[in-house]
């Protein structure tokens, strides 16, 4: 058998499999829908993670250090310290917040105006807001910076609030694992769904398979159309999953943009990119193929003509 005839035969079988799906579209569509939904779930998690990562990438200021000076440090001393810190390689900016400015801000934000008026002295010290350089914007980098700044004379206390960022990063990592696990489990689910559909297809075409075997068709020959069928189920399910994820992304894009706007961010939700889409279709087709291969191999072997 030459290569062209071989290719032609495969093409014919493939078209035949498509024809059968078109002839009984409802069952095929149901199978594809189940596959689509099963795949859409982990994909939605992937989209969420991808956006969470993009959103948190701009959160370096989350690593800002608040440097409280001792009460006795006057404004001149505060500026000296600020200049000293600014010279460090691992520092991007230093902002001076005077005690007076801090009090005014506090008065405005807290609504405790009258109560603060009762105080004779300003209880707040002069403060510096130190933003680490990008390279030092890690938990370890800021910790080192903190130690260095704390050692400077007249520095009372250095505060970093990285704990919640670390928690967030840990949460994202956890979700990533959950996404992987879900994808794995639902991938097995897809194999089983396709396997079961193919099993029913085979039962429906039992007499046909018997005839093929009677005239000398091998199990592989009888199996081929079912493999293409499984491939179609998987591919169709993959397309449906992408449509579902696309629709879900579009549905939440506006609320996310509004929410980001409220935080003064121009963050925009991004959907799956092209190469991920192609990978999803390839993976879905592969799962369909594997599911049908397992089911068809097993069930066709069990059919013996009489």
């Amino acid at each position: 058998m030459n290569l062209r005839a071989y290719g032609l035969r495969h093409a014919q079988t493939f078209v035949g499999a498509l024809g059968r799906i078109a002839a009984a579209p409802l069952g095929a569509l149901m199978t594809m829908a189940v596959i689509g939904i099963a795949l859409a779930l982990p994909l939605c998690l992937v989209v969420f993670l991808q956006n969470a990562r993009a959103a948190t990438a701009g959160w370096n200021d989350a690593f800002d250090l608040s440097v409280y000076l001792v009460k006795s440090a006057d404004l001149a001393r505060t500026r000296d310290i600020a200049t000293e810190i600014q010279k460090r390689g691992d520092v991007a900016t230093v902002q001076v917040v005077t005690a007076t400015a801090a009090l005014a801000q506090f008065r405005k934000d807290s609504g405790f105006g009258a109560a603060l008026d009762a105080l004779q002295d300003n209880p707040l010290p002069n403060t510096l807001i130190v933003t680490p350089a990008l390279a030092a914007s890690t938990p370890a980098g800021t910790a080192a910076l903190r130690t260095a700044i704390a050692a400077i004379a007249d520095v009372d206390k250095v505060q970093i609030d990285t704990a919640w960022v670390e928690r967030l990063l840990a949460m994202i990592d956890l979700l990533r694992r959950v996404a992987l696990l879900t994808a794995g489990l639902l991938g097995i689910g897809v194999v089983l769904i396709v396997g079961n559909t193919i099993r029913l297809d085979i039962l429906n075409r039992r007499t046909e398979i018997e005839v093929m075997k009677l005239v000398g068709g091998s199990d592989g020959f009888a199996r081929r159309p079912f493999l293409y069928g499984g491939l179609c189920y998987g591919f169709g399910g993959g397309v449906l999953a992408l449509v579902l994820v696309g629709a879900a992304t579009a549905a939440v894009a506006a609320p996310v943009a509004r929410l980001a706007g409220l935080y003064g961010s121009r963050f925009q939700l991004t959907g799956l990119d092209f190469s991920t889409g192609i990978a999803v279709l390839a993976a879905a087709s592969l799962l369909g193929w594997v599911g049908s291969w397992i089911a068809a191999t097993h069930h066709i072997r069990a059919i013996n003509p009489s």
Partner: protein
Amino acid sequence: MIQFDQVYKRYPNGREALAGVSFKVARGDMAFLTGHSGAGKSSILKLIGLIERPTRGRVIVDGRSTDSIKAGSIPQFRRQIGMVFQDHKLLHDRPVADNVALPLIIAGIARREIDKRVRAALDQVGLLGKERSRPLELSTGEQQRVGIARAVVAKPPLLIADEPTGNLDPDLALEVMRLFKRFNDVGVTVIVATHDVHLIDQFGARRIILGEGRVAVETPP
């Protein structure tokens, strides 16, 4: 070509269809297998086509004992046998041409060659022009002839037919038997199971008559 050696066949329900059948059909011979209904004609043909396995004894096809043929080699084995079935065994959702083409498709023959040979086979059984019909749109006799066309289309060296004339009128039955004779004339070994004694009286071929699960009478070639 075919040799049965004290062959027994007991079906799972306990029914003993064959009880010590022995006979030989040489390469290039033609033989009629006759006997009353239930005598075991179909059983013998199924043992030759490896659709059933003997309970005891040996079946030798083309010099090979069938018990040496593993499940994986059965397709290859069946491709050298053209089989006509009592119940036709056609694909009802495919046109006649596809049904006849099936053995050629399995053998990986090129499409153009397939079309040519399918038409030639349909011509031989008088069904030219019915290529696009579905089997269920045909009469039982026509369906039977589609089955015959499929059995001969790949030019197998061995042809076994189970009641190939069962649903044909006498003229057509005679025509089909002559067709088998023509195949035999070009060297194909032919075994036909039939209870139509009048029909085979018109052919000089050998008869193997079954009774009580054994070969009761065997006429010399």
